Structures are given as C-alpha cells and as structure tokens.
C-alpha cells in the first residue's frame, strides 16, 4: 500500500499506462483529457474525438490554432500523422458499433454493478445536457471512469445504487480514483490497487463489500 492518495495527474498516468498499445481511445471532457498528457507516443494509441476525428493530437498553440480543428471540449487541437475526419453519424457509429477499445469518462456516481451517472445531478433548476456521454458509455469495449472516490461532503461516489439519473446501465469496467483502482466484476467490486488507505479502511468509508 502506498501511504499517499493520488493526484489527478497521477490517476491520469495510471490510466495512460493501462491503455493497451495501439488502442482506439476516446477521452471524455474534463479530467479525462489529462490522460492524453501521459500517453507514450511510441505505443501508438489513437485518440478519437466525438466531433469527427481519429488521430487527434495535443492542444494547439499560437499559429496552430484553427477554429475548424477542435476537440469535444471545443479546445483547438492539432492533427497527428494518419489522422482522419468523418461526419457525426460515422463518429458515433464508431462508438455504438463497438469499435472503440477504451473510453475514459468522469462520473458523479458509479454503482457496484457498473451503472454510470455523469450527466445530470437531478437538480430541479439544472439545464439537462448529455452530449455524447450516453453513446460513449454503452459503446466502448471498456469504459474507464476517472473520479475522486469521495464527494466533497465525504460521501462515497461508488454506491450500491446511483441516486442521480443514469448515463448508462452496467457499462463501467474500471474505476480509477485517488484511493485506488477498482474493477467492476460480476462478483462485485475488486480492489486492484490502493493508495493512502487499506482495503479495510475503504470498506469502512464506502460501506461497500470490496474484495481484494
């Protein structure tokens, strides 16, 4: 056991190292974009962006900035060699057709069965906005979630049942958190690695039946 919990960047590095060589990967908006900073270019991972591109590169700077070349977060990016462009129906067919190997998404909550809630807090005055999250959640072969294990109020974001509106049912395969990496399996949640706490402590704090 490591004695310290992980920073966002350290979580991103763990995910980047776990992505298989040559995989086609979609990184969700927000924190998951940090994963790109830690991908080893030699490993040939190809990034997909929902707005119609494979082979997305890093954020554009200076003269590279082109308003016609942006990522899902609407940030200007650059092309990598071998990049391709396609329209939106093709882009989402890549997701829904099961062609993407991995997507990395943020979450408000993940249930022990892998249900994902990440688009809506259910607040009455919130304006609902789902974007591509539901298509990604059910489409990629592996859905990794990147999140802090606990909410600001200390409650666990890994829960027996999501209380927020769902994005997808039983779609999450792994959860990367500041306290460790958790696999969602048919037999429950298996703790792959822990940081800054023991499994027993995490069981206590999450009130979940985690197994090693």
């Amino acid at each position, binding site marked *: 056991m490591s004695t310290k919990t992980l920073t966002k960047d350290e979580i991103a590095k763990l995910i980047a190292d776990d992505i298989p060589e040559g995989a086609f990967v979609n990184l969700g908006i927000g924190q998951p974009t940090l994963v790109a900073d830690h991908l080893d270019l030699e490993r040939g991972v190809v990034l997909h962006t929902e707005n119609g591109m494979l082979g997305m590169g890093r954020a554009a700077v200076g003269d590279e900035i082109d308003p*016609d070349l942006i990522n899902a977060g609407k940030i200007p990016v650059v092309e990598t060699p071998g990049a391709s462009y396609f329209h939106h129906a093709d882009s989402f067919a890549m997701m829904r057709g099961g062609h993407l190997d991995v997507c990395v998404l943020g979450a408000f909550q993940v249930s022990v069965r892998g249900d994902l809630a990440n688009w809506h807090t259910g607040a009455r005055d919130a304006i609902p*906005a789902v974007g591509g999250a539901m298509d990604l959640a059910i489409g990629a072969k592996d859905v990794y979630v990147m999140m802090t294990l606990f909410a600001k109020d200390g409650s666990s974001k890994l829960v027996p049942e999501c209380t927020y509106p769902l994005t997808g*049912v039983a779609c999450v395969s792994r959860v990367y958190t500041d306290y460790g990496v958790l696999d969602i399996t048919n037999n429950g949640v298996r703790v792959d690695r822990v940081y800054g706490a023991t499994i027993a402590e995490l069981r206590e704090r999450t009130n979940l039946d985690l197994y090693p």
Partner: protein
Amino acid sequence: MTDVLDTNDAADRAVADIPDGATVLIGGFGTAGQPMELIDALRHHGASDLTVVNNNAGNGDTGLAALLKTGNVAKIICSFPRQSDSWVFDDLYRAGKIELEVVPQGNLAERMRAAGAGIGAFFGPTGVGTPVAAGKEERIIDGRAYVLEYPIRGDYALIKAHTADRMGNLVYRKTARNFGPVMATAATTTIVEVTDVVETGELDPEHVVTPSIYVNRVVKVAAAQPSHQQGGAEA
C-alpha cells in the same frame, strides 16, 4: 439543380422562403461548422415559431445565440445546451420561453441519418435504462436492450462546407464537417454556406463528401477572419 448564389444579398435570398413554423437543421459543433451568415440571414428574415436542431444551443451573442435571442425559435432539439457561454439560451429556458428536447448526441446524428436514408425508425442502444428512454418502446435483440428512435427531418438544413462546385458537390474542412453531411441528407431543402466555389469538374470525385443530389442552394461568403472562442470543458 443547385443554385449557386454569390451576390451580396445571397444569404438573404437563400433563406427568403423559410416559413413560420419550419424545422431548421443547423450545422456546427460549437462555432466550428456553424453557418454564421445563413443564420444571420434567417434572423433578419424573421420567420417565427421555428424548431431548430443543432448540437448546442448557441455560443456567446452571435450566430445561433443571436437567432434564439429574437424569440423566433419556439423549440430547440440538441444534445448539449448548457455551456459556459450559452447565456442567451439559459435565460430563455429559465424564463420558459423556449422548449428543449435533449437528445444524446449519437441519437441526434443517427435520427437525422435515418431521415435522410428513408428509415422509418430504428432500435438504438443509447440511453437504455436512463431518463432519455422513458416512455419509448424497448426491445431485446440478441440479448441486448434497445430503444426505438424516430427520424428527425428538417424542412431546411443550413450548413457550412469549405468548397462547393457549381453542381453543389461539397468538401468540408477538418472538424467543421461534423453534422453537415448528415443534415444535408435529412432536409427537404439544403442550403450551404461556403467560402470557395470551383467549376464543375475541379473537385476530385473521390474526395467529394456530400454529393450534389443533397444540395439545393450554395451561398458563397467571404472567408472569415480567424477568431476563436474558448468554450471550456463541455461537449
């Protein structure tokens, strides 16, 4: 037959027959691929009670946001209305002055693709077990759950491409392509804003993205000055 319009009032002429109550598909993902001049022309034209289909619900105070602000859009169908710069939409929505249908982005694209391809409806996997599938017919096919989704047809599509030839064959530019090719197929009348018009035969047929059969009117506009609005972290 495609009309290529390149006079100063080309955009205004192109949208002049859009009636009140029309459903208008408007291309773009954020501002990339948003046909700003056609939207401005539609705003000046003043057709009311419109239903607009776009991925977002306007950015800043220009383009689609400016159209919304006129109050002429009764309903918007989109995947991601809420953004750091969607204040025009946010105010209208909170005041109950615009109807919103939120559609997962892949369903938005596929429902228009279905419309363009003559598909009556389709079973899709997106949103099963979530609020967006509430009340929709569900079916298990080969052990997997799907929900029934209906096409979205437009009376008009306003899209932006990069180059058109005089027949209306289109080539797009980078991620500004986004919804353009799909919307072009899904509307009765497709109007395209481009910066470049070339003679028929100058486009390599192998490189044409939208074939001319889908295009009714091409409006040539001046190339925009490079500008960029950072939208922040949202899709």
